[in-house]
């Protein structure tokens, strides 16, 4: 049986629902020795800002139980260097290339989106709204419904590309934010970004991270991600991409079954750089075993 693995999300057609999560797959090339990048549904690159950024001082990462905290601080080469130095290589890959963007003001987001309008080879934007808004006292865009809506609308107004908005889990009611972002014009939602956490070195009595707090990722957060995806799928009508703690096909399938149209694999890439290819293989195996010919027939089939 030939399996149909393709999914449509907000005007974008992916050859399969497996994407790599922003910040965990570099600019793609870092992984080219470890798997055939052409197999991926999409590659989402490290978050891009208007100007290059240095990020936080080390130590930037620390392991936790079934997870890790990172405080990389959004270090990146900047959107222009991405287009000049990284994108040409990525154009050679037959997989959707998605640019993850962020800013400290709404104008920053808008400018990055505008610059990417002219960049050939970018299939969509993913807007990371888990960043502090420097103009509004540092509250993150993603934790305030009004701000989340504003930044979404601003990017949608200028961008020619499908716009995915990536939600933060550090909120009381993620469906509220999801609905506002949908109303503001987002084509797709992706969730979750990392959960803020902390870890302490009891010998030195200092935080393990120079930045004090960091973002928790990995299998530890999967139950929370899955719950939020399920809540959001039931609250909006645009497609939802599931992210958070996916280590293998079984984990990915849980997200599809609750209703995610696609998934992103993050931290798992660090433990096994070829993991996404394994996930696609094992997903196909599961479908064959269950007699499911089209992945779309699996999506959203949770029985309650």
């Amino acid at each position, binding site marked *: 049986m030939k399996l149909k693995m393709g999914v449509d999300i907000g005007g974008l057609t992916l050859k399969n629902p497996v994407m790599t999560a922003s*910040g*965990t*797959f*570099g600019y793609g090339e*870092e*992984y080219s*020795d*470890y798997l055939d990048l052409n197999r991926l549904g999409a590659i989402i690159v*490290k978050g891009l800002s208007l100007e290059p950024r*240095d*990020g936080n*001082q*080390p*130590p*930037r*990462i*620390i*392991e*936790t*139980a*079934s*997870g*890790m905290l*990172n405080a*990389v601080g959004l*270090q990146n080469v900047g959107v222009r260097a991405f287009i000049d130095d990284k994108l040409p290589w990525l154009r050679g890959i037959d997989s959707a290339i998605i640019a993850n963007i962020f800013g400290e003001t709404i104008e920053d987001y808008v400018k990055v989106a505008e610059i990417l309008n002219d960049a050939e080879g970018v299939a969509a934007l993913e807007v990371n709204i888990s960043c502090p808004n420097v103009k509004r006292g540092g509250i993150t865009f993603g934790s305030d419904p009004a701000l989340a809506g504003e930044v979404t609308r601003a990017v949608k107004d200028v961008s020619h590309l499908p716009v995915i908005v990536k939600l933060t889990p550090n909120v009381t009611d993620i469906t509220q934010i999801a609905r506002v972002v949908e109303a503001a014009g987002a084509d797709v939602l992706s969730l979750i970004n990392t959960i803020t956490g902390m870890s302490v070195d009891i010998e030195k009595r200092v935080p393990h991270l120079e930045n004090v707090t960091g973002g928790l990722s*990995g*299998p530890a957060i999967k139950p929370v991600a899955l719950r939020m995806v399920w809540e959001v799928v039931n609250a909006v009508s645009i497609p939802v991409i599931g992210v958070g703690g996916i280590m293998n096909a079984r984990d990915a399938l849980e997200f599809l079954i609750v209703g995610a149209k696609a998934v992103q694999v993050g*931290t798992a*890439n*660090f*433990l*096994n*750089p070829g993991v996404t290819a394994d996930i696609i293989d094992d997903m196909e195996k599961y479908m064959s075993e269950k007699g499911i010919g089209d992945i779309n027939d699996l999506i959203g089939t949770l029985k309650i």
Partner: protein
Amino acid sequence: MVLKASASFRESLPGQFVMVRMTDSNAPFLSRPFSIYSVRSRGGDTFVEILYKVVGKGTDIFSRLREGDAMNVLGPLGRGFDVPSTCKKIVLIAGGVGVAPLSFLAERCEKEISGAEIICYMGAGSSKALAGLDRIEGICSVVKISTDDGSRGHPGLVTEFFGHDMELYADNDSRIYSCGPTQMLRSLHKLLKDRPVACQVSLEERMACGIGACLGCVVKTKSDGLVRVCKEGPVFDINSVDFS
């Protein structure tokens, strides 16, 4: 620990490292980086050896493994030491298990640079912590030992010991290589900072991916800002690192 690995490891360079993780276990969660101590081929198989010290959760778990247990080994990774084609004196300065990549380097230098004298300064907390001593003694012309507690060799820091001898190594025909705790490398940096001698050091930082993707392992450099230890390093010219 000796790990059976893929044939690609035959190309390993001294100073390169591996990322090691237990297959099918989330404890420890992240892979752990270790310098390659040796690479050997036997009966068509390739074996990578690492020398490690138990300092925390991961190394504790590794120390309780038994023959035949399955590990995931990624590598060889990073930038190794530059090995010159000719050189009179190769000086190795090792702190603790920092001897591992230097031992691999010494083997290579002995084979590839004819007529070079290889001298090793080896320091550790106490005589018990002098892991890998026998092997490096077998390769180097001289091994000069120091221990913090004076239980063997020169009592005190290895950098002090080296400092006394420093004048023996002419800037233009010697190469210095070092690996050890950051504090030790910082002292070495101070000792050498007014001299144009070629010195490379191998740095450590916490890593998640080991392949340049996560940006977790950065270190401050003098001219390039924060760079990745796993990709631009772990070997750096001592003068390029910002030890402040």
